[in-house]
């Protein structure tokens, strides 16, 4: 029916099933305590509920109550409830911003101007032939299932914006073509959080971080493992990726420990949200 009715739509059906039954199967597996310990790992106990929440198959209130039922004390559930809070927060932001959600919320804190970022998604990324096993792997999962782990979304977005110098909106629009949970609120504002147009500093990562939370699975088989663009310390990457901000005016020499704020670059963020 879908092929007949929507001949223009691309791709195949996702293995993730829609509907209440599929949603209930997932919600029964919620384990707040395990979630808190493992959610940053690609194979962690994340819920997979986002497509159902996005489309109202489950309300956030139902998921909240399911979390409460899965825990014995508040500490065990606070992480997962916090993440549900993120969804609620982005939705409220969207309500307030309306169509302005498509705009940069603030200036980039990367030292680069908004106009320096490419507005086109490069073909090698769209086609999944960048030669980076991790990024090509994430692209494959995104395109074939319509879902990606939060950490994979963060790495991919950071790589696109900070390494490939693609404007967040080009990447965000591409995500929305594929994500079953695709939602300009969570999606655009997360991309902006990473890009630094909705945060105090850009988010980036390095190979150690990706290897650790992906169980090293990509690096083992990666043809670029010996010239990996992420294989550096945070300090090295910071120098490479972000432009030094030019002082607004010449700052007179100061005593040590009193560097002027206007010349200092904001510390980039390596923490997840």
């Amino acid at each position: 029916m879908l092929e007949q009715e929507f001949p223009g739509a691309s791709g195949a059906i996702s293995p993730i099933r829609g509907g209440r039954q599929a949603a209930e199967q997932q919600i029964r597996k919620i384990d707040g305590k395990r979630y808190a310990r493992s959610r940053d790992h690609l194979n962690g106990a994340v819920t997979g509920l986002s497509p159902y929440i996005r489309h109202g198959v489950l309300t956030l209130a139902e998921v909240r109550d399911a979390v409460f039922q899965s825990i014995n004390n508040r500490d065990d559930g606070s992480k997962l409830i916090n993440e549900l809070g993120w969804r609620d927060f982005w939705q409220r932001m969207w309500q307030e911003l309306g169509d302005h959600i498509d705009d940069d919320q603030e200036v980039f804190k990367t030292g680069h101007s908004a106009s320096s970022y490419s507005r086109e998604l490069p073909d090698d990324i769209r086609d999944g032939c960048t030669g980076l096993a991790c990024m090509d792997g994430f692209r494959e999962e995104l395109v074939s299932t319509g879902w990606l782990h939060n950490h994979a979304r963060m790495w991919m977005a950071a790589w696109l914006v900070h390494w490939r110098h693609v404007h967040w909106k080009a990447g965000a629009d591409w995500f929305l073509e594929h994500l079953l949970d695709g939602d300009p609120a969570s999606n655009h504002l997360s991309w902006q959080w990473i890009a630094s147009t909705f945060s105090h500093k850009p988010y980036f990562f390095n190979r150690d971080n990706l290897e650790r939370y992906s169980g090293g699975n990509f690096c083992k088989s990666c043809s670029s493992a010996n010239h990996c663009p992420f294989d550096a310390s945070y300090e090295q990457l910071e120098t490479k990726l972000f432009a030094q901000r030019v002082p607004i005016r010449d700052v007179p020499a100061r005593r040590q420990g009193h560097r002027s704020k206007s010349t200092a670059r904001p510390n980039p963020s390596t923490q997840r949200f």
Partner: protein
Amino acid sequence: MDLKQPIVWVHEESLGSTNPALEDYPEAPALFVFDQDWIDSKHISRKRLGFLYECCLDLPVTIRKGNVVAEVLAFANRYGADGVISSGAVEPRLQRHGAAINRDCPLWILDGEPFVELPRAPRLGRFSRYWREAEPVVWESYKASG
């Protein structure tokens, strides 16, 4: 004043059995429309369409595709409806559809259970500010339920 013979318009943010319009008006004919303009302009993939379709199959809805406003009004017309019942939407596109429907046929919006009900609009801007106000209230219902 109550609507005597309404129809229900179900949209992409409320494809569940807890949809308040479906819950409160179980007898009313209900409609879901695949928004052709949105699908074309955003290049929505078949995965997403398949997912939405499977969600609709669980619900007592007629499925159409095309221009959402025109389809909803035609459906209302066919049933001689005196109004349309729907659920709240955050997406501006859906809000615009609602406003356009309401110009020709009264639209009633019902809200479902919120994640957290705050006494006054929270301060947004950054998550931490919002969460400082919202988190304690969310957890009140844990104490109440446990």
